[in-house]
């Protein structure tokens, strides 16, 4: 046992491993800081996130320097003043007023210096100033267990789990919650702001480049919190307007007989999908408990941004939503899933899939 212990101690003490370890650690840290991962807060693509990152870097470098100084002091003192057998009792120093004043005043000055960019950033990230292009685009985002509803009040449009914005413009997002706390967060564009029931919030963001941005609910909201995500699609003003115009149209007109059968199932009392979902342009489907499905097939993914929107996944979802998203309310409330009416047959699932896939 003790030979092993000595070996371990030797490895810890030997400088060679430190020389290897520290650079490799630094490399790893640097690589993780230049990440292109979908929710990296370093890969900032909008002014709010950029401003927040700049502030972070100020604190990071100051903090790193402070830590290095403390660590050097600790190691220096430990090696220099390690007790030796011939040591006398050291001088009993009770303090040093001059030193103590210095190391109180220095942090005060440092903190005072940091306070300036700190407060500036708070106000700058709260609301856009005149510098930004602002067409007063306002989007209402509502958190629900466990998905996001997005409404464009100006255009009378409601969609779910996928938000489109034009690039290069400051966009205001008003934040609401229907049930518990949620939080709206697109890491590459802006820090999060909570969605609080009975307390409406807002944030602003701007995307500098077109692309698909990942969003995630960032406040614990219950069983499927981990699976409450969304996508933000930033596109040119023209593309954005084309999207808006397309979303305004009705999508349910199709001549495919299988899809038609699917629509009948959707509207039937047995399946009862219509009671919770809206499909714009239909008489019956006006529910608002579940996501608006008007242009369902135009979305890149579904079930709150967790799964790609394709034929196969949709079939799986319709067959057993709980296997994809444990706890989802559809599997608890819809008769075909909670056992109060007959489950969907394979044929019915095919028909519903065809119908939903036709909602382009």
């Amino acid at each position, binding site marked *: 046992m003790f030979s092993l*212990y000595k070996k*371990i101690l030797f490895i*810890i003490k030997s400088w060679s491993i430190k020389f290897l370890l520290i650079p490799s650690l630094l490399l790893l*840290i640097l690589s*993780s800081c230049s*990440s292109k*991962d*979908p929710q*990296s*807060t*370093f890969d900032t693509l909008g002014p709010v*996130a950029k401003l*927040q990152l700049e502030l*972070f870097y100020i*604190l990071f470098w100051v*903090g790193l320097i*402070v830590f290095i100084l403390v*660590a050097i*002091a*600790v190691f220096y003192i*430990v090696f220099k*003043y*390690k*007790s030796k057998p011939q040591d006398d*009792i*050291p001088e009993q*120093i*009770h*303090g*040093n007023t001059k030193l103590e004043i210095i*190391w*109180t005043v220095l*942090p*005060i000055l440092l*903190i005072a210096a*940091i306070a300036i960019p*700190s*407060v500036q*950033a*708070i*106000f*700058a990230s709260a609301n856009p100033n005149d510098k930004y292009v602002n067409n007063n685009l306002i989007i209402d985002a509502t958190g629900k267990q466990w998905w996001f509803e997005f409404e464009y009040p100006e255009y009378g449009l409601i969609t779910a789990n996928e938000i489109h914005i034009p690039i290069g413009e400051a966009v205001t997002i008003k*934040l609401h919650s229907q049930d*518990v706390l949620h939080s709206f*967060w697109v*890491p590459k564009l802006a*820090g999060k*702001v909570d969605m*609080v*029931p*009975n*307390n409406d919030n807002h944030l602003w963001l701007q995307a500098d480049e077109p692309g698909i941005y990942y969003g995630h609910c*960032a406040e*614990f909201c*219950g*069983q499927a*919190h*981990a*699976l409450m995500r969304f996508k933000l699609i930033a596109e040119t003003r023209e593309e954005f307007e084309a999207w808006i115009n397309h979303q305004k149209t009705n999508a349910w007109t199709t001549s495919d007989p299988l899809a038609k059968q699917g629509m009948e199932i959707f509207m039937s009392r047995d399946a009862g999908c219509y009671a919770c979902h809206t499909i714009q342009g239909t008489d019956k489907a006006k529910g608002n408990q579940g996501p608006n499905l008007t242009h369902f097939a135009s979305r890149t993914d579904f079930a709150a941004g967790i799964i790609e929107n394709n034929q196969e996944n949709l079939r799986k979802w319709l067959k057993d939503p709980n296997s994809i998203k444990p*706890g989802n309310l559809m599997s608890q409330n819809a008769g075909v899933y909670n056992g109060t009416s007959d489950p969907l047959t394979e044929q019915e699932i095919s028909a519903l899939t065809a119908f939903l896939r036709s909602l382009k």
Partner: protein
Amino acid sequence: MTTFPLQISRPIHPTGIWNWITTIDHKKIGILYGVSAFILFIIGGIEAMLMRAQLASSNLKIIDPELYNQLFTMHGTTMIFLAIMPMGAAFFNYLIPLQIGARDVAFPRLNAFSYWTFLAGAIILNASWFLGGAPNAGWFGYAPITGKAYNVGHGIDFWIISLQVLGIASLAAAFNFIVTIINMRAPGMTFSRLPVFTWMSFITAILLVLAFPVITVALIELQFDRFYGTNFFITSAGGNPVLWQHLFWVFGHPEVYILILPAMGIVSEILPTFSKKPLFGYPVVILSGIIIGFMGWMVWSHHMFTVGLGPVANSVFALTTMAIAIPTGVKIFNWLGTMWRGSLTLNTPMLYAIGFILTFTIGGISGVMHSQAASDAQQQDTYFIVAHIHYVLFGGSLIAILGGIYYWFPKFTGRMYDEKLGKLGFYAFFISMNITFFPMHFTGLNGMPRRIYTYGSEYGWDFWNLISTIGVLLLAASMVIFIYNIVSSWIKGAKASGDPWDARTLEWSITSPPPEYNFAVIPTIEYRDDWWEKKMLKKAQEQPVSKDVHLPQPSYWPFIASVGLLIGGFGIILSIPVAIIGAAITMIGVYAWSFEPVNDPH
């Protein structure tokens, strides 16, 4: 003399289990606190390991989401209320009377009541696992998810009631320590000579007395919402969830200092002893502790930067939070000053204390990062925060507590621990702790929210999560070394002298373990670090052995009163008649306690 019904005489020299149940000796109660808290710490650690297993890689299906939510709720609640706080209480109990030259605390029976009530709270909380599921809304229990509309089971009820019971325990203990420190100091032990650990405990106890009523109010409101249909936090009836957050953090932030100040006190005892120098800038260290305790009340909304309080409120709380870094920094510099030009003995407790300075500095720096409301919007509720709290609570409070256990181990048990194993355990602990928690900074900045039971592989979080999970396995191994060392040394370690470290404060002037009466002759204090100064002046005198010291006698009633709270706690949740029985037992306990006679004077 009038006699009262239920005037049952006190147990005389109880043995075996009754010795422990009826004891009101602060040292035995301290050991009870320490051992119970350590067992609960292991339970909380197992909960953490289960979560780390689930997060080892993307899309794992080891733990289902509901269980995962219960695990992180129980892990947080257990570690804060049932592990770190009572470990602090263990040190308060054992050491405060010894450090101030007293024979016991001011209210010895109340002290026993505090311990048994703490245990009752711990039992109520953990019983929830077997009675329909543990609480699942996080240790912070943010409304409205704790409401009946979103949480139908009894988990939240167990959480509310156990925290209320723990609150009773904490308040009783805190009052006891405040009165003890003010009134029981030996002659000459002025506040400017009080050992730093006792000073920090004093501040902690005051914080406890002021902070717990706030959470009590919040919990009563929540309890009424859930049990009796009120609407404090019911949003559908117009309730405001932000109210809960304010109440919770007005308690919650001072709570953070309740957890860290005792640790700072422990470090401030270890460093001078093994540097052979007095604490550098004693008045400044004390004053900065008081300032930290005071300013802890002005920073609570930094937990709420993303709640939408507005830029003005966020600026104010950002500034107050940054300001609290100043007294904290001053303490760190004073500890460095203590070691500077000393003669450092690098044994196990000293290594833990030095480790504390390093890891707590990291936690402090990430804390200042979080004080930046603007950039905190990117870090709030991510693993960056998880990294931060573990650097201050694990790399701060716990590392100091482990160091403290080693430091006072000879005093507690009368035996020496194994130094080689202790050092090995420290290095294993320190390295694996950093392997576990440092990568969480990266996953957090890479956008990983906390409290998620799964994540996709496309996020790029796999690698560092795997490292964290490996780290926690190593950490568990290091704890095995620690436990083995403590247990085996307690059983068969070499006998310890009264003052094995050539230390400075009063507890080292008596034998190890101390006699039941602590001090045969109450010492007269002439200096700060009185024991050390008298040794230097060759004035130190050994305490005589005494057989004739009047001591408070054991009692059944504190235990009975706590059993009533245990039964009553279950009763409120599960059955009202049982609650009434529990309340009756507590009443009888308190009544009989009030009229308890005195037996023989020994």
